[in-house]
C-alpha cells in the first residue's frame, strides 16, 4: 500500500491550562482571579508603568510565583513582577483559529515508500509562535511542510507512535516501537525511519537491532541535536539522509543516521549496536565505537564504508521478538565502590548486571565476593569496559582471571549500553540462563567483532 493521501484535517490552536503553564503561587492565584488564560491579551498596571500584551506560558523557562510573562506588540517578551500594587486585567481572548487543510499528495511511482515513525524529540516539531511551545509535527503533511524536499526523496507515511523525551523511554516503549516498525514493514514500506530524541537514541537502536530479526529492509533511527524550530537545525539534513538510507540503501539492518561533522555536509549511518552519543551538544555527537560506520551520505549519494549485515531483500520474512526484562542494571566501577550495591540488586530480584569495568575489564577486589554471590544466585553478570574504545581481556591481570573464574561473562568489544540492552533482551527471550550467558559473549547482530582494525574510522572524518 503506497497511499499517502491525507484527508481533510483540522488543527485547533491548543491552549495550555494556566496550571500547566508554569505559573505557581501568588501569580497563579492572581491570574485565575482575573479570569485570564494563556494567550489572552492583558493589561498589567504596576506603579507608574502599564504594560499591554499577550500572556505567555513560562513552563519552558522555569516556574515562578512572582512574575507574569507578557509578549508586547513589538514581539518581545518581558517579565513583570506581580505584587499587591499590581493589577492584572483581561482585555480579550485570542481568536481561535481553525486551520483546515486539504492536502492530497499523489504518490510517485518512481519513489520508494518510507514510513516515518515519530516517538518525540526535536527532529519533527514546530514552534508555536504565539505561545512559544514546541509541538510535534504530526503528519506527513507537517513533515513535508517542514522539510519540503522530502517529497522528491520518498513517498512518506507518517505516524506518531508516542511523544516522549528520549530520557523517558522505557524498555516497554522499545517493544512498542519494534511492533509498530514491524507493522509498517509488513504493510510494504521500503524502509522505516524512526525519529527519536538523541539522549537514548543509541539504546533504542540497539533494542530494535535485537528484536527485529531477519529484516527485509533497513530501519533507520534519526535525531537532531539542534531543534527543528531553528534555522540552523540539523534535523532536515539528518531526516532527508535517513529517508534516503531507508528507501534506497542496499542494506537490511537497524542503522542510526546523524551528522558526520560540524559542517552541514554529510551524514553517517552507524550500526544500531555500535553507535554512541559522545558529545552533549555537537551535531556530530554520534560515533561508531570499535567499528566503522556502514554508510556515508552526501547530497543523497550513499557510499558504503563497511559491508552491511544483510542486503535488502523484500521477500525475507521478518521475525519480531520484542520482549525485554528490565531487571538488569549497568554499574560503573570506581574506587570505593561498595559491595552492598550488588547485594541490593540480588535481593531486589535483578536477573542481570552489566559491569562497566576499569581498563581491560576489572573491578575492585572488594566486590569480588558480592559478584560471586550474584552469580551463585542465578544473576548473569557481564563485563564491559568504561574505556569505551577497545576490547575487554580478563586473562592479562589477576583480577580479571579471578572474575572469569567466578563466572563473569566477558563482552569482547561490545559497548556497555549495548550489553545492557542485549542482556535485557536475552533474559526475556531465552528459556535458560545458560543460553543467555552463552549468547551474551557471541555476536548476534554485529554488536561484537573479534577483530579490531588499526585505523578505526569512527567518524568518517579525515583524521
Amino acid at each position, binding site marked *: 500500500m503506497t497511499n499517502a493521501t491525507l484527508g481533510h484535517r483540522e488543527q485547533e*490552536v491548543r491552549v495550555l491550562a494556566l496550571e500547566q503553564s508554569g505559573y505557581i503561587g501568588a501569580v497563579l492565584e492572581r491570574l485565575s482571579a482575573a479570569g485570564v488564560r494563556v494567550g489572552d491579551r492583558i493589561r498589567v498596571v504596576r506603579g*507608574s*508603568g502599564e*504594560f499591554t500584551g499577550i500572556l*505567555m506560558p513560562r513552563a*519552558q*523557562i*522555569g516556574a*515562578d510565583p512572582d*512574575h507574569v*510573562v507578557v509578549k*508586547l*506588540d*513589538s*514581539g*518581545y*517578551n*518581558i*517579565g*513583570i*513582577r506581580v505584587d499587591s500594587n499590581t493589577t492584572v486585567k483581561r482585555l480579550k481572548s485570542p481568536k481561535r*483559529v481553525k*486551520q483546515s487543510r486539504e492536502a492530497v499528495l499523489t504518490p510517485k511511482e518512481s519513489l520508494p515508500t518510507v514510513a516515518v515513525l515519530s516517538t518525540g524529540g526535536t527532529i519533527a516539531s*514546530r*514552534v*508555536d*509562535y*504565539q505561545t*512559544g511551545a514546541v509541538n510535534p509535527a504530526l503528519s506527513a503533511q507537517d513533515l513535508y*511542510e*517542514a522539510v519540503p524536499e522530502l517529497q522528491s526523496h520518498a513517498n512518506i507515511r507518517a505516524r506518531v507512535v508516542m511523544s516522549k523525551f528520549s530520557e523517558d523511554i522505557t524498555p516497554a516503549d522499545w517493544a512498542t516501537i519494534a511492533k509498530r516498525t514491524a507493522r509498517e514493514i509488513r504493510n510494504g514500506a521500503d524502509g522505516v525511519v524512526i525519529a527519536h530524541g538523541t539522549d537514548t537514541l543509541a539504546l533504542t537502536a540497539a533494542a530494535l537491532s535485537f528484536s527485529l530479526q531477519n529484516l527485509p529492509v533497513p530501519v533507520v533511527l534519526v535525531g537532531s541535536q*539542534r531543534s*527543528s*524550530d*531553528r*534555522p*540552523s*537545525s540539523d534535523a*532536515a*539534513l539528518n531526516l532527508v539522509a535517513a529517508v534516503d538510507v531507508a528507501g534506497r540503501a542496499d542494506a537490511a539492518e537497524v542503522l542510526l543516521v546523524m551528522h558526520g*561533522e*560540524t*559542517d*552541514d*555536509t554529510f551524514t553517517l549511518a552507524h550500526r544500531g549496536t555500535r553507535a554512541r552519543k559522545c558529545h*552533549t*551538544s*555537537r*551535531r556530530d555527537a554520534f560515533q561508531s565505537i570499535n567499528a566503522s560506520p556502514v554508510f556515508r551520505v552526501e547530497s543523497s549519494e550513499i557510499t558504503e564504508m563497511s559491508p552491511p549485515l544483510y542486503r535488502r531483500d523484500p521477500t525475507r520474512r521478518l521475525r519480531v521478538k520484542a520482549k525485554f526484562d528490565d531487571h538488569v542494571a549497568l554499574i560503573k566501577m570506581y574506587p570505593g565502590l561498595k559491595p552492598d550495591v550488588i547485594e541490593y540488586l540480588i535481593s531486589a530480584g535483578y536477573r542481570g548486571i552489566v559491569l562497566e569495568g576499569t581498563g581491560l575489564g576489572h573491578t575492585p577486589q572488594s566486590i569480588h565476593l558480592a559478584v560471586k554471590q550474584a552469580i551463585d544466585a542465578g544473576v548473569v553478570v557481564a563485563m564491559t569496559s568504561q574505556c569505551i574504545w577497545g576490547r575487554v581481556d580478563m586473562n592479562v591481570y589477576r583480577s580479571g582471571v579471578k572474575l572469569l573464574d567466578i563466572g563473569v561473562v566477558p563482552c569482547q568489544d561490545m559497548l556497555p549500553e549495548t550489553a545492557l540492552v542485549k542482556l535485557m533482551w536475552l533474559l526475556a527471550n531465552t528459556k535458560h540462563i545458560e543460553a543467555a550467558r552463552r549468547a551474551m559473549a557471541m555476536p548476534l547482530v554485529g554488536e561484537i567483532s573479534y577483530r579490531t582494525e588499526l585505523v578505526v574510522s569512527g567518524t568518517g572524518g579525515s583524521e
Partner: protein
Amino acid sequence: MPKIDYSKIGLKVGLELHQQLDTSRKLYCHCPPIVRDDPPHGVFVRRLRPTQSEMGEVDPAALFEFQKHMLFYYEYYTDTTCLVEADEEPPHDMDPESIDICLTMAKFLDSVPVDEVHPMRKIVIDGSNTSGFQRTAVIALGGHISVNNRNIGIQTICLEEDAARKITEDEKHSSRTYRLDRLGIPLIEIATAPDIRTPKEAQEVALALGLLLRSTGRVKRGLGTIRQDVNVSIRDGAIIEIKGLQQLELLSKVVELEAMRQIQLLRIRDELARRGINESDLRLELIDITDVFIESASKLIRRALRAGHRVLALRLPGFAGLVGREVQPGRRLGTEFSDYAKFWGGVGGIFHTDELPKYGISQDEVERLRKKVGADSQDAVAIVADAETRARNALEAVFNRAIEALHGVPAETRVPLPDGTTKYARPRPGAERMYPETDVRPVKITAERLARIAKNMPETLQAKAKRFVRQYALSEELAAQITKSLNLDLFEKIVESCSVSPTLVAVTLENTLVSLHRDGVPTEQLSEDHLLSLFRYVEQGLVTPAAIPTILSYVAGHPSATIQDALDVTGVGVLDEDSIRAVVRRTVEERRDFVRSQGERAIGGIMGIVMKDLRGKADGKTVRQIVEQEVRRALVD
C-alpha cells in the same frame, strides 16, 4: 529642489542606535569580545533554512535566501571563539556586566527596567548568525532624552548579540564567508520614539545618545563599534528602515534624502492617478522580445544572447517619463525597479524605455520592441536580458514594485550608500519572527541591583566638561574636546596626581600628540607611564612646556627610554641660572651698540634672541628677569 518644509510634509524620524559594549566576555559565552585581523584557525560550512510560523507562514525574505541555496562558511579562532558561536553548544547565562551597563543607561534616560529580562530569538537567515537567529532582550521601556530643549521619547533599551562579520561574498557559487569573532559581542540598542522632526535634529539626538553611552566608560570605540538604524516616514508615505549606518556625520543627509525620495514617490503616485492608471491596468504579461535584438549592437545584450539567454519585456501602462524620474540624486524610479530585479531575480539590472536608446540599443530596436509589446507613447517598457527563469523572476519583481508605485511608498528595509542615498535591501520583516530563547533562563532585575546601579552612576560627559571648566579653568572648547577623547582617563589621572596646568595637559594630549603624529612621530608607542612621568618633570621645573614636543618625539622613537634619557640625549633639560646668565651676558655683549641706542627698549629684542637660543631649556619668566638685569647693568656701564 527647493528647501523642504519638514513640518509641512509631516516628517517623523526614529533612531535605533547600536553600540558595542566593552565587557570582559561575550553576551552568551565566556569568550573575550575581540575582533581580529590575523588569519583564522579554521572554517566550517553550514546552511540555514526558513522556519515556519504556527500559521504555516514563512518569512518571504527568509524563504528567498533559502531558495538561493546559500552556503555559509564560518571562520573561527580556537582561542577566542568556542562551540557557542559555532552553534554547537547551548548559550551560557547572560553576561551580568552587559545588563548592568544597560541599566546604567536606563537610569540616565529615565527608562523603566523590566522586572525580568527574557531573551528572544529574532530570525535572521542571511548567515550572519550561526543559529539563524539573533538573541535580543528588552532591558528597559520608556524614558526620554532632552536635546535642544525638546524631549525625544525613548521606546526601548535592548541588549543584543552582535552578528558575525561578513568577510566575502561569492554570488556565483551562492556562498558567503563570515568570521565568528564579532558574533556574540554585546550590543546595546536604544530605540527612540518617532519624535524627531528634522534631519538636523536626528543627527543631534544621535550625538547626544552617543555621548551618554560614552559616559558609562564601558563602550567600545572605533569604526564599526557603533551602528545606526533610522526609521523615516512622511505623511502618506511609509516607514522606511535604513539599516547599518556607520558614519554619524551622514545621518542628517540620509534622512533628508529619504524624505525627498518619499515626496517624489508620492508625486509619481499622483501623476499615475491623474493619468487614470489603476491596478487592473497592470498585468503580469512577460513577452519574449529576443528576436528584436538578433543583430543588436548592445554588447550587454549580445553577450546574453551568446550565453543562450532570452530578452523579456514587461509593459508598464502609463509609466512613460516616470520610470526615468529622479527620486534621489542619481537614482530614479527605474533604479528602484532595478534594485528589486537584482534582489528577487539575481539579474545584473534592467533597461527601461525612459532611458533608451542608449547602451548600444538603437532607436529602431526601441520602436520595434514597443510595437511588439503593444506599448503606446504613454507606456514604459522594462526589459531584462538573462537566463529565462531569472529574467522572469526579475520582471515579476519589477511588476510588484510598479503596483506599489500606484500606492506611493512601499515599506522597505534599505541600506545607505556612501553618498547618503539608499538602496533596497529587503521587505520589512513582520513581528512574528520573534520567539523565546528557551535555552537561557530569564534574569530577574532585583531592587538591590537597581540600588547598586543608582549608587554608582558615572558622571555624564556633559557634567564632566562643565566641571573641567569650573575646576581646571579649561576653555569650553578644550573641555569638550578632552571629554570626548580616548585620553580622558589619562587626563584625569595626570591632573589629579601632578600639580601642573590642566590646560597644558589637555593641550599636550589633544593637540601636541596629534600634530606630532601628523609629522610622522610614532606617538602610538607612547605609554601612559611616559606621559605621567613627563608631567612629573614639568611639575618639578625640570622640563619646560616648550621642550615637551622634543621629549615626546624622542621617547616615541625609543619606547624603552625614560624621560631622563630623553633630557640627557636631546639636551633640552632646564639650565641653571648661571648658565642662562652667561648666555644673556654674551648676547648683550655682542649687541652692545644696539643696547646703547635703544636703552631699556632693547629688552624685548634681546629677550627674543636669547629665547631662541634657549628654547626648551629655560622658562620665559626666569629668562626675562635675567635679561632685564643684564641690560640695565650694560646701560649703567
